[in-house]
């Protein structure tokens, strides 16, 4: 697909959505607001979540029959890019991609859907587990007789969540259950991340939870929700990279050494161009991948597109934020300068849901499988 295949009216809608999201975040204080929240302990702002909900942000990708705007992942990507530009700590991708992604596929009539879209609460999604060597492992967290036992790791947004959507092993295959924050036998260890946020490590000992869905559909819905979230995280990194580049470009235009702006030196100029090109390639590649995911129903093909997006976005964000520090010189190494926050956020978003090397591997394997099937 090229962007031409999109109707001009769709393009117009996306432009308006981008403008309104940008205005919302800028009025709220841009990246300065994100710094304040980090300094206050690394949480997010529940009022901001409600404001975002009022602007329709959590419902953009949801089908209209589920109370959404039906604008697809392409629109979700627009929102995620704007979140990335101001490194907002609110768990937008968690809500739009993971929790709503699971609920709308498994129990679209559940009352929680409306609450999430209205910004009344946030649900974190617990689906990964940590093995004895510290890396990801096969699931062993059990759900039986209405109770959870075991643990979950890398739960983004665990800190301020009103509850947890947990994917566990039931008596007859996988189940999706809802456990409330503060439930009996639930402990949440918050592991501090580079950007000040926390990644939750959950352990359950007989924690009460209500079953929402079970069977093979849970596995399938989880895979799709993870695809969506992966692609949206890629879009968030694209927005982050763009803004990090803009900040750096402004800096090299104004910082003077040897009586000249350092941006007048050719070596600096060429490095800046390379970052700009990297950024533009990432923006085009990721937007195209998200647009294609909207038209694609085959989960494997969607997974491959999501991997393409995340691989590209992480490659670009790593290069851009790291070179941005170098181009800032010594002040780039301080916490005081804005650019540091972008590097730290990029580290977290890159690792979450798989980095570039991981997604290149998935992408290649999917491509091989497709080739073998033909």
């Amino acid at each position, binding site marked *: 697909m*090229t*962007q031409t295949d999109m109707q001009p009216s769709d393009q117009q809608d996306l432009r308006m959505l981008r403008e309104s999201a940008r205005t919302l975040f800028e009025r709220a204080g841009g990246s300065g607001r994100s710094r304040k929240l980090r300094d206050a302990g690394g949480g997010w702002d529940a009022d901001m979540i409600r404001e975002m909900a009022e602007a329709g942000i959590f419902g953009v990708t949801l089908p209209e029959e589920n109370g959404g705007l039906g604008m697809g992942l392409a629109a979700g990507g627009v929102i995620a890019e704007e979140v990335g530009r101001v490194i907002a700590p609110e768990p937008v991708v968690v809500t739009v991609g993971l929790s709503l992604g699971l609920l709308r596929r498994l129990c679209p009539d559940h009352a929680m859907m409306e609450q999430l879209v209205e910004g009344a609460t946030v649900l974190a999604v617990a689906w990964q587990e940590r093995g004895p060597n510290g890396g990801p492992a096969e699931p062993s967290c059990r759900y039986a007789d209405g109770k959870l036992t075991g643990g979950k790791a890398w739960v983004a947004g665990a800190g301020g969540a009103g509850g947890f959507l947990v994917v566990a092993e039931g008596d007859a295959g996988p189940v999706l259950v809802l456990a409330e924050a503060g439930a009996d036998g639930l402990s949440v260890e918050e592991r501090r991340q580079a950007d000040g946020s926390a990644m939750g490590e959950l352990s359950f000992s007989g924690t009460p939870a209500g079953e929402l869905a079970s069977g093979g559909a849970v596995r399938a819905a989880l895979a799709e929700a993870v695809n969506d979230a992966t692609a949206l995280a890629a879009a968030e990194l694209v927005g982050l990279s763009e803004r990090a580049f803009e900040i750096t470009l402004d800096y090299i235009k104004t910082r003077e050494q040897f009586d000249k702006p350092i941006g007048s030196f050719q070596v*600096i*100029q060429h490095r800046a161009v390379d970052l*700009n090109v990297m950024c533009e390639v990432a923006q085009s590649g990721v937007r*195209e991948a998200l647009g294609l995911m909207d038209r694609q129903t085959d989960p494997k093909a969607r997974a491959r597109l999501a991997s*393409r997006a995340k691989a590209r976005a992480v490659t670009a964000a790593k290069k851009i934020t790291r070179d941005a520090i170098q181009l800032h010189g010594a002040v780039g190494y301080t916490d005081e300068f804005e650019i540091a926050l972008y590097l730290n956020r990029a580290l977290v978003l890159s690792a979450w849901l798989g980095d570039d090397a991981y997604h290149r591997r998935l992408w290649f394997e999917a491509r091989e499988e497709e080739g073998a099937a033909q």
Partner: protein
Amino acid sequence: MTDWNAMSDADFRKEVRGFFEAEYPEDLRNLPHRPKFAEIEHWHRKLHAKGWVAPAWPAEYGGMGLNAAKLLIYYEEQQRWGVNRGRDMGVQMVGPLIIKFGTQEQKDYWLPRILSCEDIWCQGYSEPGAGSDLANLRTRAETDGDDFVINGQKIWTTMAHDATHIFMLVRTDQATPKKQQGISFLLAPMDQPGVEVRTITTLSGETEFCEVFFDDARTPRANLVGELNKGWTMAKALLSFERIFIGAPNLAQNALGQLESFARGRGAFEDPVFRDRFAQAALDVEDHAALYSRFADQLKRGETLGADVSMLKIWVTECFQRITELMIEAAGPDGGTVGPLQVGNVNVDVLASFYKARPTTIYGGSNEIQRNILSKAVLGLPG
């Protein structure tokens, strides 16, 4: 006359594809070298008979009159089927120059001869002291009665040894405050005592580039195109549309296809390091194609491309080089072997691809020059 622009994109693509697939000689597909005219004359005759030699020219001059969207489709199909561009300097450069700046007499005389390939053109821009700094050119033309007399030297003149005419930038005023001034566009015949052509052997052993020496060579004053001393501005005006094609994805895409079949045959994919590097290259090509579409869409909407289009060339040529370097790695101990290497039932000329990729970052404005342009015109960096 057919109004191609009135067709739907899909119908037009089908028409072009159908013609190439049915008529283009199989043995000329994806030629690894630049052919002399005699080698592709047969195909040129077919194209000429169909009226398809000059897709971008207005119909009144014998072109197809394609708009940007249709033109892009034409070139995409040409690349897809591995159709050689032929000796197209006349069509790509001289024709547009004359159509835009030439007199009625020049149009009547030269344009039909370009279409029929009665005249075959080469481009005389670069000189030993004027490469990236093209405005530094020294070859001079002085008036003598009804003629210009030309003295100096051109270099990197592609296929000059198989051309009948040269279009060239020459200095017609030695005493201008800026070196971009005092440059004019001249057309000149090659077959005369004052013109000597020597081929340059490249590091791959090819001889498609030449040096051209002018020693009191003559051309009629009527062969000045446009205003005297205004050649630089005209040359820049000619470049605007071509800049997207130099950044088109096809070279890298074709090389990636070759790399894949070669690497598969050689078992290189068993190595996880190679797999990752292949995946990187393949994703670099895919995401470049997405960026290319963005610029192509701009053209299709009738917008003019900005200086930012240069980023396509930077990315794709460097990507093309990495792919051909991976091919050499996959060849292992055969990495220095000249000629096709057989793997299963495919032949891959690893070195030919490698060599072909090297000059892409040098020609058409070296990638360093492109970075200079982007840094000033797009990023607004000072100095």
